[in-house]
């Protein structure tokens, strides 16, 4: 069961990780020759605004003062002003986060449902020709770079067949009143299909292979033999008796996967012009909009760190064999 000491230790580690990542980021962005405003295209930022930015961030103060100011602002949720949008980074990011989560959660739910089902199935039909064929397909899907998968689907289903829009989150002119209409309209789902399919094809590999390997171990256990001797149907044995035990590591992998999926998310958002955090990060980095790039990165890193924390906690919670230190006994 959950041990309070372990939980506290893990929480402290999460705090330290966040602190170090933030500090690293601060010093990295101070490496830009001439400071964060120097690379701005001339005229993009009026001189008085530039002075204001320098003033607000204390850019003419000693480094340690800047660092203290940066940390104080961050704790208060102030990530500075976007050079490009001229608005607070935090308010710009908030809407992007929701869009990213809508895409990410759909893709991860689909790929984990599919991966667990197919993995159990593959583990069971081990050694057949069908298994070999299916494995080859799985490995090819997993080897394809996710952005190429996106481009390929775009080529077939948008350019050749014209079934789906080439990008964006809603049609031009389509208005959305409130969150419900934004995320629960036919138009939105129409735009969601291709990015979700690209991401899912890529993500399915991990839970599938994990599930298959666990199944191979589980089906040699005695209770499976007992179930067979009882005359239970194959289907019942696979999905009720075996899969239930093979699923544990996949659940933990789920939380870690959310962290790892960030890279795929950035690429797919770019391919499909999805107005999410990933694409915002790419765009702001290209525009040298440093506060924005910094803010989006911080949020993505926070997401990863939090998910790693959740994974560790889930792991100890689900598998009683794990002792307090997080080591297997």
């Amino acid at each position, binding site marked *: 069961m959950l041990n309070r000491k372990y939980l506290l230790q893990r929480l402290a580690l999460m705090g330290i*990780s966040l602190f170090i990542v933030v500090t690293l980021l601060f010093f990295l962005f101070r490496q830009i020759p001439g400071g964060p405003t120097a690379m701005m295209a001339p005229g993009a930022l009026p001189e008085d605004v530039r002075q204001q930015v320098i003033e607000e961030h204390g850019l003419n103060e000693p480094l340690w003062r800047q660092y203290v100011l940066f940390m104080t602002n961050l704790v208060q949720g102030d990530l500075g002003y976007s050079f490009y949008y001229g608005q607070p980074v935090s308010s710009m990011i908030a809407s992007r986060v929701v869009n990213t989560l809508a895409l990410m959660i759909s893709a991860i739910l689909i790929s984990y449902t599919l991966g667990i089902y197919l993995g159990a199935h593959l583990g069971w039909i081990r050694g057949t020709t069908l298994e070999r064929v299916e494995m080859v397909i799985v490995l090819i899907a997993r080897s394809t770079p996710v952005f190429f998968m996106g481009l390929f689907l775009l080529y077939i289903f948008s350019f050749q067949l014209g079934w789906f829009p080439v990008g964006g989150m809603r049609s031009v002119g389509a208005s959305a009143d409130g969150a419900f209409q934004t995320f629960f309209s036919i138009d939105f789902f129409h735009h969601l299909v291709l990015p979700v399919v690209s991401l899912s094809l890529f993500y399915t590999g991990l839970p599938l292979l994990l599930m298959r390997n666990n199944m191979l171990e589980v089906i040699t256990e005695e209770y499976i033999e007992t179930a067979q001797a009882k005359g239970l149907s194959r289907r019942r044995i696979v999905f009720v008796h075996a899969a239930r035990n093979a699923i544990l590591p996949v659940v933990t992998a789920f939380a870690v996967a959310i962290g790892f999926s960030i*890279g795929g998310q950035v690429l797919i958002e770019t391919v499909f012009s999805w107005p999410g955090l990933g694409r915002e990060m790419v765009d702001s980095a290209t525009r040298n909009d440093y506060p924005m790039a910094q803010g989006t990165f911080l949020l993505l890193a926070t997401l990863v760190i939090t998910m790693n924390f959740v994974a560790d906690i889930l792991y100890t919670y689900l598998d009683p064999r794990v002792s307090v230190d997080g080591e297997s006994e």
Partner: protein
Amino acid sequence: MSDTNATATESTTDGSRRRQRLRRLGETLASQAKTVWRSKMAVFGICLILAFTLMAVTAPFIAPYEPNERQYADDGSWKTMESPSAEHPLGTTDDGYDVLSQLIWGSQIAMFVGYLGAFMVAVIGTGAGVVAGYYGGLVDEGVMRFVDILYGLPFIPFVIVIATIFGASVWNVIFGIALLYWLTTARVVRSEVLSIKERPYIEAAKAAGASNLRIMRVHIVPNVLPLSALYAAIAVGYSITAQASIAFLGFSDPTVPSWGVMLQRVFNQQGLDAWWWFLPPGISITLVVLGAYLAGRGYDEIVNPQLQQ
């Protein structure tokens, strides 16, 4: 445990010992090669990788044109977006460049990053894992917490940050790989070392006065090498995908021909109608990565027989 003693004995019989060790290494390699040969999957994967390696090495001789050499039609106009022909087997790009030549030249950077990435993953991951696992205690705690913290940096966004600050180049990806891709290898190697170091022959070596360094080098590292090799094989694929992804997003040097840069160009110029332009680089990446997976998995199944039954 006296280090000076160990060094002294070593230097007296240095030559013969080295020969002996080399012979043992040769035998290990030969037996591993035989093992790998038993898996058709692994052999196929290795062949795929070797084919692309050959392409990269011989690029200057087999590529019909320079990667950025404009092709002109007889009337002096650019050969823009021409579909495949005898003269240009994979057609031309919007700028009138030969796709096949770009593909062949692009394999150089892909294979370079792939092998370098695999090497770094193997060396750094194995090194950190062995040191953490062998010394245990505070060293272990320190190394593994460092690994935990690095797990908090998402790879692609991190490389984008690096590229924004230090400018676009191939080295950003390589730096990212060196910093972030060895973490899993280190964790796995460490837990393997934890079990190896409890074995009697390690005790025996310690009792005989072998230094820590020597125990790690002679008794531990050779035992975790198959594991490192597995992760290195898979890292070839990961590194190539990483390089292509960053190039696709526009954070790599656009003047260096690479598969990712080709795909970026297709995407930015809305050239998706030209299948001969965007399919070859994408399929090439997929094939190399598949080759790395197959090599790794085939090897894994041989080393862990419970996976095949």
